[in-house]
């Protein structure tokens, strides 16, 4: 019963709050909520192309959200998913412009490169936390700016595509493009990869020793340490894996959607993903659903801005408010039910 209540009231409450706040944002912008919402829904789900774009956004949010979720399980707050995603995408884009391999093998290599890049970026923060006790929240955020500066430097110079106009790598050979999932849209099989990853993580959290250790070190670090869990190792491992998942997401953006790397590849997916992970109650399968919901907002938001003149940024305010409200809910829940989130 408690599990059911936790599972449903959280997301349902968040959705109800979201609807009220969205209406307010629309009224402030001088649009009736009916007009605003119909623009949003039509823009997100009004046809094959729109549904494709919504799922593309959902996929882009799903990977970093799963990464953030994994770190959160270990009691680590990773707000550097944005940078980890960027480094993963950069690795995939740079390597993709350079390699000559058979198509399917090339795709796997590029996805792995993304995971390695993001993982390395996450591991820096993990190592700093484990070795020096550095605050991982500040460290992961600082690394976002370092990643952005280095990525811009590299794609403005050494990695810039020969024909690229701006700061971009060369186009990937079409044989390295992820296969399409929905014809005539930009949706690739990255969506299935993300859902499979979520299912895998759900299993890891619920059924494996590693999943148990993560939770133990997150919820009761002292007890975990005394029971023989190496907290330091777990810290960098969790942040590395968290970064690897975000980096894999970056690689799917390159191979599945843009087919090259540029520095504008992520309009803040790594930050919106924090809201996705929290609304998904840190349960990977709920996170899939939350990612779809936020995908609707992201892709419908553009349409809402165009046809109902409600600035798209209203959506980010609302995401922030949802995080803010969930901060209170989560804590109350853990207190009342004896410390298990």
């Amino acid at each position, binding site marked *: 019963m408690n599990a059911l209540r936790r599972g449903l009231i959280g997301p349902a409450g968040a959705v109800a709050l979201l609807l009220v706040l969205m209406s307010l944002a629309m009224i402030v912008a001088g649009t009736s909520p009916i007009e605003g919402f119909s623009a949003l829904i039509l823009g997100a789900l009004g046809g094959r192309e729109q549904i494709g774009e919504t799922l593309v956004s959902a996929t882009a949010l799903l990977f970093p959200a799963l990464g953030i979720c994994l770190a959160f399980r270990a009691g680590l707050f990773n707000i550097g998913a944005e940078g980890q995603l960027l480094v993963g995408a950069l690795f995939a884009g740079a390597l993709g412009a350079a390699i000559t391999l058979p198509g399917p093998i090339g795709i796997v290599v590029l996805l792995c490169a993304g995971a390695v890049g993001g993982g390395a970026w996450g591991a820096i923060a993990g190592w700093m936390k484990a070795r020096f006790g550095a605050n991982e929240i500040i460290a992961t955020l*600082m690394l976002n700016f370092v990643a952005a500066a280095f990525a811009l430097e590299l794609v403005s110079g050494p990695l810039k595509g020969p024909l690229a106009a701006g700061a971009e790598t060369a186009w990937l050979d079409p044989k390295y493009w992820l296969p399409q999932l929905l014809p005539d849209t930009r949706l690739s099989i990255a969506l299935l990869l993300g859902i499979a990853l979520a299912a895998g993580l759900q299993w890891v959290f619920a059924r494996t020793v590693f999943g148990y250790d993560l939770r133990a070190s997150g919820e009761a670090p002292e007890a975990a340490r005394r029971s023989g869990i190496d907290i330091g190792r777990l810290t960098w491992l969790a942040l590395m894996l968290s970064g690897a998942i975000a980096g894999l997401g970056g690689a799917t953006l390159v191979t599945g959607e843009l087919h090259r790397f540029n520095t504008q590849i992520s309009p803040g997916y790594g930050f919106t993903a924090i809201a996705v992970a929290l609304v998904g109650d840190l349960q990977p399968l709920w996170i899939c659903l939350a990612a779809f919901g936020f995908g609707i907002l992201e892709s419908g938001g553009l349409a809402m801005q165009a046809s109902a003149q409600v600035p798209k940024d209203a959506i980010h305010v609302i995401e922030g408010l949802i995080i803010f409200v969930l901060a209170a809910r989560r804590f109350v829940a853990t207190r009342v039910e004896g410390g298990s989130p």
Partner: protein
Amino acid sequence: MSALIGTLVVLTLIKSTPIIYAALGGVVSERSGVINIGLEGMMAAGAFVAVVVSYATHSPFLGLLAGIGAGALAGFLLAFAATRLRADQIVAGTGINLICAGGAAYGLVLLFNQPGASVQVNSLGHGFWTLIVLAFALAALLHWVLYRTPWGLRVRACGENPSAVTSAGLDPLALRTYAVTISGALAGLGGAFLSIGELNLYSDGMTAGRGFIALAAVIFGRWHPLGATAACVVFGFFEALQFVLQGQIAWLPANAMQALPYIAALVALAGVTGRVRAPAADGVPY
């Protein structure tokens, strides 16, 4: 050469100032037991509202006051969540950051009808120098308040052992609320310095992680107003250095150089292991 050093010194002072305000806010808040991850957003709120009010009233001074007020309001919001709702402070602060940055972006479109940046407004002009001096003066004042006044003692007690404060017949939640609201006001002042002090407009992302650099300065400065201020001057120096070097040495990788202040903060963060201790009840709801 001496002209170059002069430029570097002045630029260091300018670049340190907004971080100092935010870091002083971070010190007050964390000394009272609330981690203020929302400093970044409170700076953005201050920066944006200062521009809006300066635009509406043509008075940059009113803009400055409004910026401080906006930061205080955001601070109060976090304080309310941290005390009355007993929320997870980190998550709530992250929410504040998104609300403020998103709200400013929404406001830009709504009020100025243009995304990305506001129109140019009246800036503080020479008042900007006063604010630089004021930052250092406030650091000294905060040191005095925290270590020499009863109120300061109570705030520090809230951060170390709030139940002792209750035993003394005082309300730690009220003290934390004051401290975090003041923290927001200071961050808002830092933000207003960025938008109508250094410049004369607001643009998206102009706070550029300074709220988090300020948090690193709080740790590097051992939760002490003067220590945090010194740390801010170090980070401000690297930001200034990056500008000066870029102008002087053509072959330096200009884009990568922008990472310099962030790398400095990372190194500082890693470099103080085991030698610093946060207030005992920092981040723990009471």
